[in-house]
């Protein structure tokens, strides 16, 4: 039948094809070249059968520019479909007259009269069909039929290898996309960025390939639209696809990582804003999103019109009839749902893309979980740090309290003796001003005086320390804030001598009385005033303002502000101003401000120091006014216990 020379030639050509390239497209076009070379025909086409039993055109030659694009037949449909189903060759002199012929306008088959259609068989499976067409009406000789069948037999192996190769390539691509997305998503501590990476993976043409994706987060009994990625309009979609260079653009790894700028662009898009307005109840049998979340499975809706869980409004909101919802889970818990659709290219959602979507969703679930854990961690950490600070502060105060009480007590008595006798010594030498004092007496007088002065300093230190642990005991009285300031200033005037400092007061009229320990609060005010004075050794201005503060959600308070123009607190000292024993002064105990704050806090108030560098310091005291009306009792201890022992005689 087939002479030896021809069969050797065919064998040589097809073997060359098998070893030349792994790419399907190249293999098919080479096969067509061989067919056209060995046979007297005008056009040749190759169809392949996919998993869904669709017989689709893969390569062709000789049909003209317009011909045969995207042609896909069902098994058994038309001549090609028949050949595929029956795995038998058909040679037709008048193809269009054959009852199996189905006219499909796109095929431009009307220009061809005769047709030879041969199945490509591999292990008794039909994997495709190769067709040869001629313009002239003619019979195909048995020889020609054998030639085409031989070619088909020879290339079947190459084609199926190329199919496996391309499937592998797809899987590798998919895996590498998933790898990059998971890397990008998990290497960032910014959960928002991680989620953008995933949404962009879902919507990029070369990866998930969906037109739009919206992330919903579960919040209580609701699904809240959190972010959305997709074109704002068909025009926008067109622009994006043009920018991307079409769907066939080669996948590039760096594209997977979403930059900060892209993130900003995404979050500013109208579609994201639209996504953020969406809310759906997380209720059984209510909507597809809740269905996906509650049943923890992908819900794929092909035709929304017929779906019981799709309301008319839902379809209008999204403008599509076909979509898929995939749940996001982590640790058995549903954290959200991603909704995807292909609004702009109206491509059907395929099984393959749903699988890929499920994988993206798994990553998104972990990113959400990570973000939740990180947020929790950060909050806990912050809490711990502030607790640590508080503990340190408390410990400092406790140690101070114990230490001070012990030390002070042991020191006080000897100090009284030393000071007392130094005074007697001095007074013995100079009982009254005496001009007849001789030089030696004067020296002794001075020595005694130094002892006395130093003892006084030590006594002041002890007084400060001993006051410290006891600031909790308040003798509350109803006081007029104006009088309080006036009295504080009275006792303060004498200190002012020699300094050119003006004190300005601004006290709100008709202020309510306030329930405080007047002695302690005056102590606070005096302490702050003397700090202010010390910061202005030559001249300056102190401004005291007193007024009522009514903040929403806070109970009314009395505000006492004391500002000075002493240049502020130097940076190195600022952290320590409330630290007991910290001082920048030559003769100070450093207890002043920490005692002040403790006193104010024992009143239920706050003391804040605001530092204005190179200008001055502003101390703000807030004392709650809430007690001022309902407490009529004149005096009781700070813990609120009435004085049950008052009047008792021992």
């Amino acid at each position, binding site marked *: 039948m087939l002479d030896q020379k021809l069969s050797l030639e065919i064998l040589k050509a097809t073997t060359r094809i098998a070893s030349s390239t792994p790419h399907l497209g190249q293999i098919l076009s080479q096969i067509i070249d061989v067919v056209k070379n060995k046979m007297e025909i005008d056009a040749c086409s190759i169809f392949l059968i996919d998993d869904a039993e669709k017989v689709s055109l893969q390569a062709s030659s000789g049909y003209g520019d317009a011909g045969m694009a995207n042609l896909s037949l069902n098994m058994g449909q038309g001549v090609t479909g028949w050949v595929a189903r029956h795995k038998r060759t058909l040679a037709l002199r008048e193809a269009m007259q054959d009852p199996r012929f189905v006219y499909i306008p796109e095929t431009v088959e009307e220009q061809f009269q005769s047709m030879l259609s041969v199945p490509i068989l591999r292990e008794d499976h039909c994997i495709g069909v190769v067709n040869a067409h001629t313009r002239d009406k003619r019979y195909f000789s048995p020889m020609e039929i054998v030639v085409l069948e031989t070619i088909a037999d020879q290339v079947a192996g190459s084609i199926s290898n190329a199919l496996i190769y391309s499937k592998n390539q797809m899987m590798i691509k998919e895996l590498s996309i998933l790898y990059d997305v998971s890397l990008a998503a998990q290497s960032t501590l910014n959960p928002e960025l991680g989620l953008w990476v995933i949404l962009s993976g879902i919507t990029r043409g070369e990866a998930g390939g969906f037109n739009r994706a919206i992330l919903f987060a579960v919040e209580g009994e609701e699904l809240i639209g959190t972010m959305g990625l997709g074109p704002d309009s068909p025009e926008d979609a067109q622009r994006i696809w043009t920018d991307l260079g079409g769907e066939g653009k080669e996948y590039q790894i760096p594209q997977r990582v979403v930059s900060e700028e892209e993130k900003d662009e995404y979050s500013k898009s109208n579609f994201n804003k639209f996504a953020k307005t969406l809310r759906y109840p997380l209720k059984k049998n209510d909507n597809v999103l809740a269905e996906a979340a509650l049943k923890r499975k992908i819900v794929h809706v092909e035709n929304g019109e017929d779906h019981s869980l799709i309301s008319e409004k839902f379809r209008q909101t999204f403008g599509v009839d076909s979509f898929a919802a995939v749940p996001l889970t982590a640790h058995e818990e549903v954290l959200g749902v991603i909704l995807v659709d292909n609004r702009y290219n109206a491509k059907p959602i395929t099984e393959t893309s749903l699988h890929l979507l499920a994988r993206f969703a798994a990553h998104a679930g972990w990113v959400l979980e990570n973000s939740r854990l990180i947020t929790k961690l950060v909050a806990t950490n912050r809490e711990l740090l502030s607790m640590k600070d508080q503990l340190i502060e408390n410990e400092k105060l406790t140690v101070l309290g114990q230490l001070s009480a012990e030390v002070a007590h042991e020191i*006080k008595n000897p100090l009284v003796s030393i000071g007392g006798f130094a005074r007697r010594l001095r007074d013995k030498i100079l009982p009254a001003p005496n001009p007849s004092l001789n030089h030696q007496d004067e020296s002794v007088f001075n020595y005694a005086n130094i002892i006395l002065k130093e003892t006084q300093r030590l006594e002041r230190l002890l007084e400060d320390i001993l006051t410290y*642990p006891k600031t909790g005991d308040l003798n509350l009285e109803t006081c007029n804030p104006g009088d309080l300031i006036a009295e504080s200033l009275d006792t303060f005037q004498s200190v002012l001598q020699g300094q050119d400092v003006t004190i300005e007061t601004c006290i709100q009229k008709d202020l309510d009385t306030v329930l405080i320990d007047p002695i302690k609060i005056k102590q606070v005010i005096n302490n702050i005033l003397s700090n202010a004075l010390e910061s202005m050794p030559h001249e300056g201005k102190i401004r005291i303002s007193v007024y009522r503060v009514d903040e929403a959600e806070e109970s009314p308070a009395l505000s006492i502000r004391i500002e000075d123009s002493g240049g502020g607190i130097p940076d190195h000292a600022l952290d320590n101003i409330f630290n007991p024993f910290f001082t920048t002064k030559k003769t100070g105990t450093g207890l002043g401000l920490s005692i002040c704050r403790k006193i104010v806090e024992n009143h239920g108030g706050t003391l804040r120091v605001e530092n204005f560098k190179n200008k001055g310091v502003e101390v703000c005291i807030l004392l709650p006014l809430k007690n001022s009306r309902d407490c009529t009792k004149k005096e009781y201890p700070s813990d609120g216990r009435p004085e049950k022992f008052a009047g008792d005689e021992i």
Partner: protein
Amino acid sequence: MTEKKKKKILIADDEDNIRFLYKEELEDEGYEVFLAANAEEAIAKAREEHPDLVTLDIKMPGMDGLELLGKLKKENNNVPVILCSAYGSYKQDFRVWSSDAYVVKSADLKELKSTIKEILISSGK
């Protein structure tokens, strides 16, 4: 001022030098001063000398000043008692209220002296 008209003041304090200082200072002020180094001595001296005024240190070994205050007041409620202490924390102790004054110890005895003077005048002694 003759010896007989001098007011008698009893000082109870466990610190030798403080007692000595008080004695010197108060004698300079014209008082007759008796000293006790602990509570027992103070009770004995009070019975013996009938002082016009007593000053008590609160923190003393054995019976402390507050307890002593109760004992002294029980024997003679008319004797004014001034409590002296190194620090003011006892002011919150209710037993302090039966004393006539509370003075925080200081090298400067001005406050103690003026308090003694006031109390003696107001108690008519």
